[in-house]
């Protein structure tokens, strides 16, 4: 493994600790709220601009008037990312006509490898209306901090993966005014997500 990746990993860990993600707990970042948590009052979050899977600039505020479900992941993630997007697909199906009132957003935490083209192939494999967003690491990191999302590259000398990305596996619900309202832990029943989302209409 090149020395710079070790250095980078060290810097990232240090940055995470400084950002208050450590919370004095050796297990890492601040735990995100419990499954299906309704944030009351809602958490004000900043608008952001990333690049969508068609290569166009995309603002969170473009989704005003819709409820947005966001998941942070990366396309090389073999396991929970596709599982979660498959669950988004089920949520969308369960919403029926109301699906038009909900945006499904996959935010990459691997801007280096997840180009808009790669994201396009990925999100479209699940649903042509899903939105993939990517950007530079500084921008993504600032957004992640807003949502309480932790992510960190991990390199293994013995692994051919190059690097893997540890990341928060929760799904986030943003209301029609662009405020953070819902947090679901990984594996939450799509029917429960639908019920929570409908309550935000």
């Amino acid at each position, binding site marked *: 493994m090149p020395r710079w990746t070790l250095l980078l990993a060290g810097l990232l860990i240090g940055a995470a600790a400084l950002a208050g993600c450590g919370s004095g707990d050796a*297990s890492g970042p601040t735990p*995100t709220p419990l499954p299906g948590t309704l944030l009351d009052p809602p958490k004000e979050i900043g608008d952001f601009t990333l690049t969508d899977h068609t290569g166009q600039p995309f603002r969170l505020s473009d989704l005003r008037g819709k409820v947005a479900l966001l998941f942070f992941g990366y*396309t090389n993630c*073999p396991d929970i990312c596709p599982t979660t997007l*498959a669950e988004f697909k089920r949520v969308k199906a369960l919403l029926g006509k109301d699906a038009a009132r909900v945006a499904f957003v996959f935010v990459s935490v691997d801007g280096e490898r997840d180009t808009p083209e790669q994201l396009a192939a990925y999100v479209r*494999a699940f649903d042509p209306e899903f939105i993939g967003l990517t950007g530079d690491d500084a921008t993504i990191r600032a957004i992640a901090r807003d949502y309480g999302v932790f992510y960190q590259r991990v390199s293994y000398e013995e692994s051919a993966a190059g690097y893997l990305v540890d990341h928060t596996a929760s799904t986030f619900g943003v209301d029609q005014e662009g405020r953070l309202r819902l947090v679901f832990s*990984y594996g939450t029943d799509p029917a429960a997500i639908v019920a929570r989302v409908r309550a935000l209409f």
Partner: protein
Amino acid sequence: MRMRRFLLAVLIGVALGALLIPRLGDEDDDAPSSAPAITVRDAWVRATVGSGGMTGAFMVIENNGGTADRLVSVGVDAEIAGAVEIHEMTIGEDQVMRMRPIEGIDVPAGGNIELKPGGYHIMLLELQRDLTPDDTLTLTLTFESGAQVEVSAPVRAME
């Protein structure tokens, strides 16, 4: 008297031998049968999109033998993937997903171990092409005992 003792000793010897020989025989039978005791079912590989990626293979490994074994390596055609690793994924109380390469997976005697999303998986890396749902891959699983099992794993859509 001496003769009787001698005969008794011979009898005991024969009796003990008779007891021991089938046991030894049984052990001999066990050794080869414990290797094919490993069977694999419900294998599948997640389809991919985009080049140069990686994906996971999942399955249930059953050990019907009397000896624990351990999956130590997996092979696949180099035209499919440049490298194969065994990974474990965990989600902590902090809801952070962590994925780690591991040395192997123990398969307990008379038990099974499930490689499934959210736990263990076989990671196919440096994919040479996209894997689509009409593909079927052949994976060769090698165990610590030396047992090798060929597994036919159909590719399933990402959903």
